[in-house]
């Protein structure tokens, strides 16, 4: 277990630019599944056939991560940029980033000594620039072009029971799916493993999946904000790291299909797998998109701190319990 997470998180793949992630996953799962194909939008779908008397269960994890795009190359050689997905400007200043395949730069900010009143206002993207050390527009144009994708650079790290990395949202889900493929579970059901694109820009990848495969149910395997820090009273926490996978009953724009929610809870209880309810209803997942396109869907998440930033944190035990929960759930045949 957890063989792939390090490499998965260290790949750059903002929404619309998931190619490198897809190549990596495809290479690793080839030969372990019955069918594998890439659809028109770039979703990577793998089928592992069951013994034939079961349902078709789709597991979804999105390959994309939040990042940025270069929108202009300025006269002074700096780059203007805009977020791809939701990234708060307060988490990106003073960070190293990668533009395109290998150009490194820094999101710098005017020295605090020179800032005027209002320096405690959240900066706008229009005020921020990436500095790649180019002294002029011409020099910058030799290295980058408008439209290049930009991503964080953070090396994966394990400390105690915790994992610290970028892009855990949702390479963590991709890693869970890959581990489940490796588990080779004995079951009746056919399982579709859908590694999807463009979740962060509006749950877009899975929108075309229902037309392609007639799955009976879908489960979005995600990370979810925890908020379990001193800034919030305990009763306002969404989830707590170390308490097990989070099972969602409702989130932004979707009340989880009741039978799926109950089956997930029941599975965890039967096998004594620690789990927690997601206690706030903000945020959204691809489950909503599956539901909108006619596939009843549920959500299982690994609680995470500081997602949508260069450095996020999950608990390894939560991850392991997520794999165990889904492994058992995939054997269920009644929905």
């Amino acid at each position, binding site marked *: 277990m957890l063989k792939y997470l390090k490499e998965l998180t260290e790949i750059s793949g903002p929404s619309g630019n998931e190619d490198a992630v897809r190549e990596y996953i495809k290479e690793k799962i080839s030969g372990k599944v019955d069918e594998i194909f890439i659809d028109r939008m770039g979703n990577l779908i793998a089928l592992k056939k069951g013994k034939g008397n079961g349902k078709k269960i789709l597991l979804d994890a999105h390959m994309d991560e939040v990042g940025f795009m270069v929108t202009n190359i300025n006269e002074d050689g700096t780059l203007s940029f805009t977020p791809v997905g939701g990234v708060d400007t307060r988490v990106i200043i003073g960070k190293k980033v990668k533009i395109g395949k290998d150009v490194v730069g820094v999101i710098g900010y*005017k020295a605090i000594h020179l800032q005027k009143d209002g320096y405690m*206002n959240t900066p706008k993207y229009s005020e921020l620039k990436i500095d790649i*050390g180019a002294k002029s527009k011409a020099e910058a144009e030799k290295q980058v072009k408008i439209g290049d994708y930009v991503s964080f650079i953070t090396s994966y790290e394990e400390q105690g029971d915790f994992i610290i990395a970028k892009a855990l949202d949702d390479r963590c889900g991709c890693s869970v799916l890959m581990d489940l493929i490796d588990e080779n579970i004995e079951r009746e059901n056919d399982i579709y493993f859908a590694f999807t694109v463009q979740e962060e820009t509006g749950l877009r990848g899975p929108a075309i999946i229902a037309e392609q495969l007639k799955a009976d149910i879908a489960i979005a395997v995600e990370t979810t904000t*925890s908020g379990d820090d001193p800034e919030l009273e305990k009763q306002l926490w969404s989830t707590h790291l170390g308490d097990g996978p989070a099972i969602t009953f409702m989130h932004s724009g979707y009340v989880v299909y009741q039978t799926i929610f109950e089956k997930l809870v029941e599975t965890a209880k039967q096998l004594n797998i620690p789990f927690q309810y997601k206690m*706030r209803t903000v945020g959204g997942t691809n489950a909503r998109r599956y539901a909108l396109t006619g596939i009843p869907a549920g959500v299982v998440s690994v609680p995470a701190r500081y997602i949508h930033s260069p450095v996020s944190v999950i608990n390894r035990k939560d991850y392991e319990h997520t794999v165990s929960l889904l492994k058992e759930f995939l054997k269920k045949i009644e929905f």
Partner: protein
Amino acid sequence: MANKQVELKTNELLLRLTSISGPSGYEDEVLKEIEQIMSPFVDECFRTPMGSLVCVKKGEGPKIGFFAHADQIAFVVTKIYEDGFLRLSGVGGWDPKTVISQKVWVHTKNGKLRGVVGFMPPHLQTTEESKKVPDYEHIFVDVTMNPNWKDISIGDLVTLDVEGFEKNGTIFAPALDNRASCVAIIKAAELLSKIKTDAEVYYVFSTQEEIGGPGARSGAYISEIEYGIVIDVTHGDEDVPGYPKIKMGEGPAVAVGPVTNRKFVEHINKLAGRYNIKTQIEPIAGRSGTDTDDVQLTRIGVKTALISIPLKYMHNPYEKIIVKDVEDTAKLLAFSAAHLPEIEYEELQSTGSVKEGE
């Protein structure tokens, strides 16, 4: 003094010295490294009671000191929560918006521990909260990932885990304020070890500048110098209304104003011209906010100059500097010291105590 060793590479020195953390009051590790690098170029090295490192190249002529502070801004732990979170306070002036979502090291008595700086998840903030940068009462450090986080105590120092890198002669790294100046002095010492001069040179790497502390002054006091050049950094490539823009890559900025000695500054500018070193002018009408202000007033007074290396993104996790500016600064320092006897001669001439032809 060994002159035969391989020339030190400025870019490598910059990355080497910025990779060591040395918060104000805790500069020892950096100073040890500097002392080791400096020792082939000088006759002796010692520490002042305030911890500053002084390296001396002996000479019979006028005495000059070069000063660079070796400390950097950092944080200190001010509160520990029972579930493994900390609050911080800055040691020196940090912009809070550059600190969120950084990995940090917490320096405990039993070694360093990992931390991640966080604030309330943006998803969970109210509209009002999302309009403001949180202050240090609302930024925290998550240390829950360390099984032994209880080793942390209030007063432990915290530094950012940021690694410098070079791109085409430009360095992005933490603490270039003021390790860049330390490197300029080291390179000047290397040059002066190869130039014949009568000047006696004190290389002072001082402590506690970022908090306005006593490091440089103690160095100036002990060395009893007549001339002193403080090397620090100044804001490069920034528009400051009513002032000339100090440009990155256009050479060091030589300050003019009451904290500097006019004749000494003229001497430095003359040598810049003679050796084709590009410089810029930085007018400072009052106190400079650098160690120059203190060095000038030490003992019976010191004839001071302030030379600043242009630096962008000061006090950011990644500061930016141009390698050539550091090298030009080193040359200017070395030649200014080597030709010091000239100013003495000119001074004597102007007061009539030396006759032409003597």
